[in-house]
């Protein structure tokens, strides 16, 4: 059968897909907070902006993340860690996406990473990318997916670890176009 074509998420997704974040009176299935106080692993915050071809931060993007837990398991049956987050860039004054999660462990010999899916007005088909961690240099060098990326573009996939008063923050911007364009994958 033929796949159903994609269409843009448009500018008005918030009340349908992330209502609680945008203060609509409807429950959300997912948010920017993936962890509870019981979740095992190193608590981290992932922050960044989505930049267009003119360098402007995009305030109507929706970012989704999919990740393993601290044991390297997806959909673990022994905890409440779902591993899926969704955040719109329309509520932060700097148009950042912000995820409170835990650092995933390695999966199948790959370097620790998070799958990132990007939706927005003006994107007729969503884009897939991956986030890797700046403090995993040795693992990153061996990673089978990163090894397919041209050397000069690998840095676009690596979130920078910062120790801040609010805890460990990984800073990572998604750049849609241009010299520093984030690597997007045909997944």
């Amino acid at each position, binding site marked *: 059968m033929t796949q159903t074509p994609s269409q843009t998420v448009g500018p008005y997704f918030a*009340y349908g897909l992330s209502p609680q974040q945008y203060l609509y009176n409807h429950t959300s299935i997912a948010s920017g907070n993936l962890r509870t106080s019981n979740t095992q692993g190193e608590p981290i915050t992932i922050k960044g902006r989505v930049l267009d071809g003119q360098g402007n931060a995009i305030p109507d993007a929706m970012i989704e993340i999919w990740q393993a837990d601290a044991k390297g398991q997806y959909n673990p049956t022994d905890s409440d860690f779902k591993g899926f987050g969704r955040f719109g860039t329309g509520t932060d004054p700097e148009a950042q996406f912000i995820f409170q999660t835990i650092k995933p462990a390695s999966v199948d010999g790959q370097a620790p990473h998070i799958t990132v899916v990007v939706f927005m007005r003006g994107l007729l088909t969503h884009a897939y990318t991956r986030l890797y961690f700046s403090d995993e240099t040795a693992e990153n060098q061996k990673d089978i997916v990163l090894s397919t990326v041209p050397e000069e573009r690998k840095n676009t996939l690596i979130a920078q670890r910062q120790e801040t008063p609010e805890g460990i923050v990984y800073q990572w911007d998604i750049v849609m176009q241009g010299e520093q364009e984030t690597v997007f994958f045909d997944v």
Partner: protein
Amino acid sequence: MNHNQRDWEVHPPYLYPDYKSTVFRAPSKPLIPMKHTLSESTGPVYGQESVGKYDNDLTKNGIRNGEPLGERIVVSGRILDIDGRPIKNTLVEIWQANAAGRYIHKVDQHNAPLDPNFFGGGRCVTDENGRYTFMTIKPGAYPWGNHPNAWRPNHIHFSLFGSNITNRLVTQMYFPGDPLLQYDPIYQGVPEKARHLLVSQFDLSLTQPDFALGYNFDIVLRGHNATPFENQ
């Protein structure tokens, strides 16, 4: 090559200049092909526990002091994979404008009335046959700023999960015979041979006599990778 690769002969390209917002947002460098790993062959699972009582009935889930205005419709269809197998127990999320063509979203400034009894968002989970069903109000067309006298055709936004993260799909369902489709760059961005796949079909068997008209809209997702060993 993964068996369930994204089919770029049916999906719209990133850059489609008639739709102006694509110009500074479309990735400009070629995508890098990725062989699927466990990270791609897994995905979030949202079942019945994520759906509340009236979540699939948009004629009820926004009521404050009466019934929402507009034409009641049933929208139903099956979620299938590319091999035609039903995708059971998968979450379907929708959102739409009201009958007047106005979204409840705070950013929508279109000069058409909000309906105090219509919210416009809903969700449900597919059954054993991969079928979902919503009761809602037929959304109105609305103007937008893409080009002079631009109007979006009537549509309902859909968000699907399917069996893993590569199945993720966000799309829009249109209505048969809508004269605005030929002028809409978002719809026209889809390669011509695949456009009809976004148009629902009027279905008399889905109507509820004396109550609501029925439209069928089937959705095909990529499904499982049938040949995972080739990826090792």
